[in-house]
């Protein structure tokens, strides 16, 4: 405890220097904390979005990302087959079609999500009702579209399919049943969801039985992996991915840049922090070599003096590290807002996400930084020749 008091007295004796040191560590620590939040933020946020949809297995026709590859043929039979598996609780067919508003001078492009109205929806109703039991003409629309076109539950809207060769399909009349939040919507997306058959009818295809993907919810007692394995056994020609697989895939490809950049920046930041504290402590020790030699001469053990240096380092890093948390949180909000302005990023996807693990790693890294920073000044103090130092002090 005496070493701790010695360190405290050294710190408070030079408040300006100590404050600047703590502020420097706080700035560095805030950046380090943010890089830790960034390193897994996208993964956690993406996982949350996937879970929000309420389905943990996806069935597609090829190994490309959903909506980028070919469609599943005979989707209804496939959905029935999958629904009959004991590991599966629910199956939902999803078909996405490009559409546009059929009225007004400016034709707004809209993404139409077709799904089975009787199955559990992939969206969250925020106003009005869902499409279940309301027929093929019922729609739910997202908030952005509702605000832009001033639509509310009960409003009517006409949509035309953007179908290439079948561009001539007549517009379809719909009634807005409710307003919903779609997990993967961007801030400016215009999304509507309606019956699966309506998605086909937009392009005049009433008999086509295809789907972009099937989303499957596994039974809690079986789990996603067991459900995926059962589907693969039942149909070898389809591609089955669990939410975990998707997260891993995105972690390896789409999100890897931010993970790597966070590692690089965290390393640089930590190195910078160690350098900062090491220089502060070394200069401080060099300025007080005479005092340290005197303390050693009057009986303070080497261990106690060395402990004092380590405690001083711990105090500066600890105080800076604690200050770094609110600073880093505020900074992460700013940085997150910058990155989320990227085009095509879902409105609910975040780059910086807090998790207790980040806090633990932050504390561990700063503790390591405190020890590493104290290493050189400790060496100076430990190897200090008492008599020669006192003599040099007296002569100078």
């Amino acid at each position, binding site marked *: 405890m005496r070493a701790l008091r010695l360190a405290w007295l050294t710190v408070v004796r030079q408040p*300006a*220097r100590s404050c*600047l*040191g703590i*502020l*420097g560590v706080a*700035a*560095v620590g*805030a*950046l380090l904390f943010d890089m830790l939040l960034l390193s897994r933020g996208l993964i956690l946020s993406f996982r949350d979005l996937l879970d929000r949809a309420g389905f943990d297995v996806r069935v597609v*026709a*090829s190994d*490309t990302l959903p909506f*980028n*590859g*070919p*469609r599943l*043929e005979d989707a209804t039979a496939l959905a029935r087959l999958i629904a009959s598996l004991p590991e599966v609780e629910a199956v939902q067919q999803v078909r996405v079609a490009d559409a546009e508003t059929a009225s007004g001078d400016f034709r707004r492009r809209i993404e139409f999500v077709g799904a089975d109205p009787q199955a559990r929806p992939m969206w969250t109703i925020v106003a009005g009702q869902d499409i279940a039991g309301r027929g093929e003409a019922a729609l739910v629309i997202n908030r952005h579209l509702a605000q832009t076109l001033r639509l509310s539950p009960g409003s009517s809207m006409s949509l035309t399919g953007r*179908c*290439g*060769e*079948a561009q001539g399909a007549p517009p379809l009349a719909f009634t807005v049943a409710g307003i919903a939040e779609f997990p993967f919507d961007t801030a400016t997306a215009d999304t509507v969801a309606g019956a699966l058959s309506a998605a086909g009818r937009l*392009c005049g295809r009433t008999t*086509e039985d*295809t789907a972009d993907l099937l989303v499957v919810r596994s039974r809690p007692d079986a789990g996603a992996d067991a459900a995926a394995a059962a589907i693969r056994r039942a149909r070898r*020609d389809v*591609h089955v991915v669990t939410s975990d697989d998707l997260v891993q895939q995105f972690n390896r*490809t*789409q999100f*890897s*840049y931010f993970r*790597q950049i966070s590692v*690089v*920046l965290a390393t640089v*930041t930590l190195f*910078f922090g160690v350098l*900062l504290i090491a*220089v*502060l402590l070394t*200069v*401080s020790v060099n*300025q007080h070599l005479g005092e340290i030699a005197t303390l050693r001469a009057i009986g303070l053990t080497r261990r106690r003096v060395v402990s004092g240096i380590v405690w001083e380092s711990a105090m500066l890093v600890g105080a800076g590290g604690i200050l770094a948390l609110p600073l880093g949180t505020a*900074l992460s909000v*700013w*940085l997150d807002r*910058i*990155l989320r*302005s*990227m*085009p*095509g990023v879902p409105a609910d996807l975040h780059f910086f996400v807090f998790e207790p693990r980040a806090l633990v790693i932050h504390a561990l890294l700063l503790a390591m930084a405190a020890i590493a920073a104290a290493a050189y000044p400790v060496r100076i103090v430990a190897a200090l020749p008492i008599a020669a130092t006192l003599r040099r002090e007296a002569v100078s």
Partner: protein
Amino acid sequence: MVFQPTMTAAFLISVALLTQASPTAVEPAGILITRQLAESRGLTVGSVVKLATDPAGAHARLFRVDGIYEPTPDPMHFAQPQLDARMHLPDLLALEAGMPDERDRRGVTSINVALSDRDAERFALDVAARVPGLVARATSAPDDRTNTFIVVERFHLAIAIVTVVGSAVFLLALMVMLVDERRSTVGILRLIGFTRRRILLQVFIEGAVIALAGAAAGILFALASQRLFNGFFQWRYDTTLVFLRITPSVVWRSLAMAVPFGIAASLVASWTFLRQQLLALIRR
């Protein structure tokens, strides 16, 4: 004005099925494949492969690999391996024939046009006026996709600002300590007649020299490490994309930030002592 629809090289297909096939009597059409595709599937020039747009391999056709090319790095998709093949447009259309999906309709995604008078903006307006619904744009026109990089640049700038603030605090702490060390020297200089202004000028020059030397060392370090940084990311993503480039503009911006900060830190730290009474400086 020359209309030149590109018959090769402009259309990339996602390879749904790619298998090496035995050569047959029918001469297969030639294709080019990316180095990444060749390496991942062990293909060489002369290999005969089967390509299909259907995941089950329906309507597959044979192609011969005529060449392997290094793809132009695409910053939008650098995290994904570029497994691309390029083929003549008629071969692509033939490959897509019979696809039931409207997404695979017969048609082209874009037509590249080489202009003789180079007035691309006027040409784009002319096309838009004559063919409503067709989007014509100059290749030099701003692209929405560049917004991604503008955002990434803004993010890096924000990180740089935080780093600079941290460095400034660090520098100030150091300068306070260094000036404190010189307290008695400054006192003696004042005693022998040096004015505050002259001492401050000396500190200013010293601060400028240290800041310039520090900034130069930082720039040299960045220049030396940029190859390492690029090498790591190019290896990681198997691309020739350049991730980090120290340009003259970056150098000047670094100097413009670092040198004034360095000088300011020296002056602020020194001024706190110079304001003190002479006797306080020499601790009497």
